């Protein structure tokens, strides 16, 4: 087992996840000896702690089954899909905001015309 897989297994373990949550909530509990100037491996470990925390939350809220945890390739693919999915949701939201802003300037004499929200803003 390479270092990469070891790092993931460590971040995925329940004890590491518990320490991670406790460190965020209780002052004095530390994940690393240093609290600044993280090394590259520490930054990667933190990323994996967040990565697995999100996966466990999605499993808990039944967004995905715990089958996702059986293979690294599943974990990566699901996270990639979820991030892309979230990004497209955000894009749609910001598009909606753009339309609303344009509506405030679309004055026709005294009345305000709101654009059709199903049409693209030109």
């Amino acid at each position, binding site marked *: *087992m*390479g*270092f*990469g897989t*070891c*790092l993931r*297994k*460590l971040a995925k373990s329940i004890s590491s996840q518990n320490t991670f949550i406790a460190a965020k909530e209780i002052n004095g509990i530390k*994940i*690393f*000896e*240093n609290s600044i100037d993280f*090394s*590259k*491996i*520490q*930054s*990667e*470990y933190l990323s994996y702690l967040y990565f697995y925390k999100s996966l466990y939350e999605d499993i808990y809220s039944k*967004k*995905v*089954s715990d*089958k*996702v945890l059986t*293979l690294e*390739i*599943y974990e*990566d*693919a*699901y*996270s*990639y*899909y*979820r991030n*892309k*999915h979230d990004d497209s949701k955000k894009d749609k939201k910001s598009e909606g905001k753009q339309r609303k802003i344009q509506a405030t300037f679309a004055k026709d004499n005294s009345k305000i015309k709101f654009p059709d929200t199903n049409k693209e803003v030109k």
Partner: protein
Amino acid sequence: MDNVREEIRQEEIKKISTQINDEYNIDKIRELIRSNKKEFIHNDKTYRVRLLNDNEKDELNILTKKRLNSMIQEKDEKGNYVWLHIAELIKIYKERGTVDIEKIDSGINKATKKFQSANFELGEALANKAGENFLKSYKEELEQSKSELESLIIEKGHYLESSVEQQIQNYNAKCISYLCLDVKEENSWIRAFKSIDDFIKADDKLVNLASLYAMALHFGV
């Protein structure tokens, strides 16, 4: 019957030994993550790999620049430069018609898109709780696109390995390992080797082990 029992026993031994090995590797990495240091014993001596401090980073910079300056001026007996930059190598390959790096790059772009799309499809299938057969087929597709992408990246790396840029990167990695490796002598830590040349000539096992930890610390896993 005895043969079957023996096979099962061997399988169990293999399983347990893999578990122990995994736990051993996880313990090694746990120490490295927690303290940014890793101690190990080699030939009855205790060594330590740690993060570089600011002075050592300056030292690293000087070592690398010196090596770069000497490489870009080095000529062979015919007066030709020994080391070529990536752009020069690509040009030569093209002129000789042997290797087309642009074509490999375009292959990498295509394979990356294919990999991302297969990754998304497998992720979507997992989110939609697709059946085992669907997952298996998406997984195979993803593994195939990953392997295509990896082989193209390896192929490109192989053709450009002799470039100044790649050689400097390799030298930089060796210098980091040399600078961050200490040995314990009379309860105090001192640099394990007097010069980078001594480090490079040292026992392969020690160099490889030090490099493994040093790279994980400074460049990640």
